[in-house]
């Protein structure tokens, strides 16, 4: 039990350190373009993706670093990608939002990835594989029409897909009450997609729920949805948060997955892990920085 709690904590804290170091170094000009960090949503990635088997597929969106690292992606290759280095995951072509490694795919246009994930799930089923596709989306994506076209066909054709909706209550700067009418749950239920609702940032609860859902998708070869009410503790990208400091303080106090999982570890153990993770992430950053600039 202790080992398992530590493994989860280590993964969550790795994502946290990665994103914090990224933001810290952004202003120095090492990284180009923009970035969307997973701060506050680390437990979703770690909890859900701890159940993957070989052949399973992950489809992610613009906020994909946490998903990529939880999938097992190399932090140094991700740093290098963000630096535009040849040693990056996609040779620096993709940048922050466009990652592909093994069975992990992310892209930056909202909604289209849901159709893409649906097609992948249907293809694996057609080929007779027992693979599961996991598609991460946000509440902001619910504004896109192709999501509903896709959900219809997901259900109609029985795609072995787990849709994980990270409901962080904000799309860039727009709170969800200004963008989402009616019920999110009923959106899925209207298509007869069984849906589970979690309101927590606790990796253990997320891991337990996701484990059951992924097994069900695999055995039934039919879709499930998991809505996780979560909190974006960072800005949308680099410095564009319009929420009040009181609101952010409240979220940090109640919704920080690092703190929630960290409390389960003995203090001395946690300190050791923290230090190891910080050293590892720093080394990944240094390694990426030192990697070859010249393209082959």
């Amino acid at each position, binding site marked *: 039990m202790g080992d398992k709690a530590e493994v989860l904590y280590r993964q969550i804290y790795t994502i946290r350190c990665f994103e914090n170091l990224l933001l810290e170094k952004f202003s120095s000009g090492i990284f180009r373009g923009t970035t969307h960090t997973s701060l506050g949503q680390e437990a979703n990635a770690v909890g859900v993706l701890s159940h993957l088997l070989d052949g399973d597929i992950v489809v992610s969106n613009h906020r994909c670093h946490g998903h990529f690292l939880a999938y097992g992606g190399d932090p140094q290759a991700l740093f290098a990608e963000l630096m535009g280095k040849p040693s990056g995951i996609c040779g620096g072509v*993709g940048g922050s939002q466009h990652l592909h490694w093994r069975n992990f795919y992310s892209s930056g246009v909202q909604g*289209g990835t849901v159709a893409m994930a649906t*097609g992948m799930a249907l*293809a694996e089923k057609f080929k007779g594989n027992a693979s599961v596709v996991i598609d991460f989306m946000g509440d902001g994506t619910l504004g896109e029409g192709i999501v509903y076209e896709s959900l*219809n*066909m997901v259900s109609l054709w029985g795609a072995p897909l787990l849709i994980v909706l990270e409901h962080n209550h904000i799309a860039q700067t727009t709170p969800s009450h200004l963008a989402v009418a009616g019920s999110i749950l009923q959106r899925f239920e209207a298509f007869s997609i069984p849906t589970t609702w979690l309101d927590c940032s606790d990796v253990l609860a997320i891991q337990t729920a996701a484990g059951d859902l992924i097994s069900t998708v695999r055995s039934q070869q039919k879709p499930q949805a998991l809505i996780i009410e979560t909190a974006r503790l960072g800005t949308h990208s680099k410095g564009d948060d319009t929420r009040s400091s009181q609101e952010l303080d409240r979220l940090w106090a109640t919704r920080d997955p690092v703190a929630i999982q960290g409390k389960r570890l003995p203090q001395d153990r946690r300190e050791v892990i923290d230090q190891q993770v910080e050293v590892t992430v720093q080394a990944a950053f240094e390694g990426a920085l030192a990697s070859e600039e010249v393209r082959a």
Partner: protein
Amino acid sequence: MTVPTPRTVLDSLNLGLHQALQDDPAALLIGEDLLDPYGGAFKVSHGLSSAFPERVWTTPISEAGITGIAGGMALRGLHPVVEIMFGDFSTLIADQVINHLAKFHAMYHGGVDVPVVIRTPMGGRRGYGPTHSQSLEKFFLGVPGLTVLAPFHIQGEQSLGVPGQLLYQAVTAHNSPLFFIENKLQYTLKLLTSENLQEFTVLTHQTPGAQGFPCYQIRLDGAPTAQLTLAAYGYMAHLALEAMLRLAYEEEIFCELLVPTQLAPFELAPLATSLQTTGRLLAVEEGTRPLGWGAEVLARMAEALGSQLKQASRLAAKGPVVPAAADLEAACLPSTEDIIQQAREMM
């Protein structure tokens, strides 16, 4: 299944799909109203759901969704063919084509392939009105990573006929997204055979690239050296061929016709060669004129030939819409008469 000899473009395309599904177990058709006995709105998919029930999926009216799904299928090793019922609806798939399918290979640094074929009929002259008659392919001709083909109605040396052969190659052997532009009136055209083409010499050039999609150069036998090069594809190539004959017999204006089947990436070396002789270019298209295929043809030939290009002109649909009424529609879309008239004015 005995393979009959195709007689029309429609037969040829239908046979091409049959053969593709027969030979390629990863091929799969998805689109609206595809199932027999209907077999798709224009019958290109007729008989396929009976022959391959597991691999022909009829879909909801969700063009964007099915195109995106096809992209996901292709990323995982299938060879989906999407039928978009009317070319007008291709606007609905623009984000999927431009930002997803055509981008993945380069965006993921060559790590994936996306072999999707999207077929659709463009074109008017059937009275379907403004939203069911357009030729919108020009909006897809400049998309990096997207190949665009338009078949020519010729039998060629292929048992499937050239349209079916092109489609067969696109489905079974092309490794990246491909937009296959058909035309509603072209479906009923009989395939040109050596008998129909006795008066002509047809040279076949291969477009550079792994597939070597053909570009046809058509000359009138026994005619003096051509003074004008016509460039056209799809159904307009049929009208241009008619115009070429009449110009020769009625006006003593001698032309050469260039018919590319690969519209994008744009490669028209045979056209430049023809223009080195004629010096005059008339590009004919059924889409609207501004910033269209003809504009690119003229620009590229001007760049390639400099002062060797003495004169260049375009013929295209007039705006703002393709009307439903027969007389208004006829006035909107370029006809054989229009080609003859324009050619006469150029001489």
